[in-house]
């Protein structure tokens, strides 16, 4: 059953509608994929409290993905489950940052830290979207995500202030994640139309600059590397890895074995 009653869709011209669909798909796929990677920590996180926290955060993200897939389904007349589970691995549009397996705990913390702040900047803008269903959902998601932000700021500090292995693993993880985080802000096809219509209140490139301003103070304070102002690569939301193809085979296993299965 859909999470929300389909609202009467505003009438957009075909190009704007296609661009909005691309935006919703990128948002939903980000939350969906990171939610699945994080769910793998259930039972094997570094401590019991973290088992609970990682699982709870993963559940939030999958919930956000579901609500976003439903907004997309309302717009295109599709079904959320089909969008989530019925695509080939190459048709997902999550940021390249989320292509990699969960790695060690330091990698999860580093990726989460850069992603949560990118997501926060994006949601802050989308809460002002002229597409009302998206603005309402972004406003609600933002309140939930603030708990994730606090959690991973704390973990970043905890690992950074440790001596020895924890710190060096964190530095190695940040060296991978910081340059790739810009993929979250990869320009979308038709983005100019979204900005013009107020659906995306600011260009993604402006949000990327704000993200850099936002993560730099804490990273500097902890003596960690800070992000450089490189523009995203054009394939930031289309290149895929074997690790993601494996994850895709996992999360489509039930849907693939029984077409139209409900659970």
């Amino acid at each position, binding site marked *: 059953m859909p999470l929300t009653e389909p609202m009467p869709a505003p009438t957009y011209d075909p190009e704007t509608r296609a661009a909005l669909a691309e935006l919703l798909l990128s948002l939903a796929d980000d939350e969906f994929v990171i939610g699945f990677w994080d769910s793998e920590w259930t039972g094997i996180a570094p401590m019991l409290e973290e088992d609970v926290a990682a699982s709870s955060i993963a559940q939030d993200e999958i919930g956000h993905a579901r609500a976003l897939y439903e907004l997309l389904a309302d717009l295109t007349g599709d079904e959320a489950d089909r969008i989530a589970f019925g695509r080939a691995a190459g048709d997902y549009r999550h940021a390249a940052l989320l292509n990699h397996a969960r790695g060690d705990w330091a990698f999860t913390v580093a990726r989460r830290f850069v992603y949560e702040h990118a997501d926060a900047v994006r949601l802050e803008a989308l809460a002002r979207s002229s597409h009302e269903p998206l603005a309402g*959902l972004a406003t*609600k998601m933002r309140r939930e995500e603030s708990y994730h932000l606090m959690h991973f700021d704390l973990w970043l500090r905890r690992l950074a202030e440790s001596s020895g292995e924890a710190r060096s693993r964190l530095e190695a993880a940040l060296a991978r994640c910081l340059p790739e985080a810009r993929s979250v802000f990869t320009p979308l096809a038709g983005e100019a139309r979204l900005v013009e219509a107020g659906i995306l209140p600011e260009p993604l490139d402006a949000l990327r600059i704000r993200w850099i301003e936002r993560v730099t103070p804490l990273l500097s304070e902890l003596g960690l590397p800070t992000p450089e102002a490189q523009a995203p690569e054009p394939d930031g939301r289309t290149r895929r890895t074997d690790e993601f193809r494996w994850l895709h085979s996992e999360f489509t296993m039930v849907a693939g074995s029984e077409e139209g299965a409900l659970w």
Partner: protein
Amino acid sequence: MSEAAVWAALADVPDPEIPSISVVDLGVIRGVQVDGERLTVEMLPTFVGCPAIELMRAQIGERLALLSDDVVVKLSFAEPWTSDRITPDGREKLRGAGFAPPAGIGLADELAMMPIATCPYCGSRNTTLENPFGPTLCRAIYHCADCRQPFEQFKRI
């Protein structure tokens, strides 16, 4: 049929995860409309990913089916559900069930977690936050240093 009758019926529907509190106490009902036989209830999810949403929605539908054959339960994100929507009655019922009710939060965009909650068992403020994430999305875990009980807080959000 009056709107008041619908609200009274909704007060019978428990929260599936904390059954001592009703969906009305929890503040998830945004509005009720009576239009002839058609009853429309608008519901605000506590958390977007709450797995109890569908159950809550089904239970509301079943209870209202006793009043009318034409019931629509709509979910909405038109405004965010916040923990401030829990009624004073609801807060007392939470405390009675061993949950610390959330402190007020307002509509601030960046939430600051309360490092301390009041112990629902002994009333002490000598408590510490053990984990902002608990057994369900809406609960955080604390420990009371005075009565030495772990307890849960309905999350402030």
